[in-house]
């Protein structure tokens, strides 16, 4: 696109983000402050992820963008179109073909590889925010490794509900040091953060924070010896592809309480159907027009 630099950001901005990214990788789970720029999409709509992606892209990349696990949700479509325009790079809906994947709220079902980078859009990067709204306080808590309050809060949940009542954005501990917000992914996805071959980068634009998980990093969901963390498990198979191991969306199909459960990861579901898997409500598989 004429008039704009490769990947939209000016070089000085990219250098600033790149330096922050390197420090983020060097201090896994620590939130590096960065001078987030105003982007041509609103704060809260992925500006952090977009800046991280823009600072990482090379012309050879193939980019996939998902929101809620799906490639065809409006904001995913919009961000993908943005990069196709300002960086002139290839895009894909297939996890396996992507070298960079920008995501909001999900980690793809297909295992990621060493040659892939996963970029998360993060709304509130501070895992302690719900205990303490002040950045000046939470910064001290991280510095002193003072996470007792967090454990107390989680234990109160157990006392009241019999389990930790946190179903997404479930906090993790990175390499036994920093407590980190994994972004609002369902806790179903938390185990995928651990020991992942791909580099995972997190960008929070409005809150001006970048953080990272290098490949093969130990990531543990917070829990207690007597109440170990349990990732949620689907109660149903996918109605389209029959998968029993994927995260499902509940789709209301009529006004009489009828509903079906389908894979939130649209690419995973399509792949399985292309390979001949059938759920109980599946039509014969047809390649979707891109």
């Amino acid at each position, binding site marked *: 696109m004429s008039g704009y630099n490769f990947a939209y950001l000016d070089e000085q901005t990219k250098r600033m983000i790149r330096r922050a990214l390197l420090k983020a990788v060097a201090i896994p789970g620590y939130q590096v402050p960065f001078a987030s720029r105003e982007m041509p999409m609103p704060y809260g709509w992925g500006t952090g992820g977009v800046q991280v992606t823009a600072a990482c892209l090379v012309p050879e990349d193939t980019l996939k963008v998902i929101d809620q696990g799906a490639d065809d949700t409006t904001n995913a479509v919009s961000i993908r179109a943005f990069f196709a325009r300002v960086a002139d790079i290839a895009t894909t809906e297939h996890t396996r073909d992507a070298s960079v994947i920008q995501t909001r709220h999900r980690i793809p079902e297909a295992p990621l590889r060493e040659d892939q980078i996963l970029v998360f859009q993060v709304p509130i990067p501070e895992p302690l925010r719900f205990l303490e709204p002040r950045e000046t306080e939470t910064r001290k808590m991280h510095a002193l490794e003072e996470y007792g309050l967090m454990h107390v809060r989680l234990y109160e949940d157990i006392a009241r509900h019999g389990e930790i009542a946190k179903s997404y954005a479930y906090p993790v501990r990175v390499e036994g040091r920093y407590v980190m917000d994994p972004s609002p*992914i369902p806790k179903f996805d938390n185990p995928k953060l651990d020991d992942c071959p791909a580099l995972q980068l997190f960008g929070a634009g409005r809150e001006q924070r970048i953080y990272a998980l290098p490949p093969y990093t130990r990531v543990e969901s917070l829990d207690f010896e007597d109440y170990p963390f349990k990732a949620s498990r689907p109660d149903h198979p996918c109605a389209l592809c029959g998968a029993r191991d994927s995260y499902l969306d509940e789709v209301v199909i009529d006004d009489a309480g009828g509903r079906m459960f389908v894979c939130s990861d649209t690419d995973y579901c399509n792949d399985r159907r292309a390979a001949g898997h059938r759920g109980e409500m599946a039509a014969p598989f047809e390649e979707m027009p891109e």
Partner: protein
Amino acid sequence: MYVAVKGGERAIAAAHGWLDEERRGDPAIPELGTDQIRTQMTLAVDRVMAEGSLYDPDLAALALKQARGDAIEAIFLIRAYRTTLPRFGASIPIATGAMACERRISAIFKDAPGGQVLGPTFDYTHRLLDFALMAGGEAPSSAPQSEPRDAAKPHVTEILAREDLIQAESEHDEVDTPPDLTRAPLSLPASRALRLQALARGDEGFLLSLAYSTQRGYGRNHPFVGELRVGTVAVEMEIPELGFAVEIGEIVVSECESVNQFTGSKTQPAQFTRGYGLVFGRGERKAISMALVDRALRWKELGEENTGAPAQDEEFVLAHADNIQASGFLEHIKLPHYVDFQAELELIRKLRSEALAHLGADA
């Protein structure tokens, strides 16, 4: 049988088309020119420049046209454009004492050197709708418009300063290169220069309400409008090759200095204190609000008590003053959140079924 909805791209394109149509409105009515907006909707243009942090009336007018008159959307357009512009350097501080004032009032003296200049203000208009404007209106009768008076207008607070009755602004916290919160992440505690920068581009409504809250007792500091001035100042830049500053243009700004009551502390004799507000364009409501909030935020420096009022809370004020950050995050909850919602749904069902089973067992 279920067919997944797959129309994101088409839906977006259709929405954009419809939006263009709505913006244009009835094609039988002449299209609004940006020159009309720039010269007739001047206060809207000024607000967009102030909160967009970019002094360019033509672009602000364009942004307002494109945004269908929505100030925050127009500010957003300007901000997103501004961030792509190269920086050539920093100007030297503008000299507001040398301002060509079109308006200059002081509420603390009946008259002051340089005089009171009422200027084109709404203040004493009776707020009666002028139906003549609706009828196509006449050109206003040529009102006696005093040329900006060249007579020097020293800052009113200088009169107080001569008698040492008002706290002197410390020079040392004004560093050579002012901090730039668009280039460095906000870190707390912030310097006053950084706070003022954040307030200058902050949302007018937010600052107005905060300032109002201080007047009602939440961080009360008894403000007087020491001086309010609106007018044109020169912008000068140091050119290293020349070794002196040259004028690169003129801008209109609104400046307010509040004079606040202060009874003294253990370490300081009684003295008046100050709050400061400066805004691009004609934005006196915002300038006054800014001065009051600035003054409230200075409690620590002036040895006052922190009463826990919102306007005294630096982190609270700075983290929430920006309407582009606020509106973006507020409106992002329109985006799909069905994955998280699904996780919550499952959790609630599970907790409820366990609780109900419990109740059933007890019954």
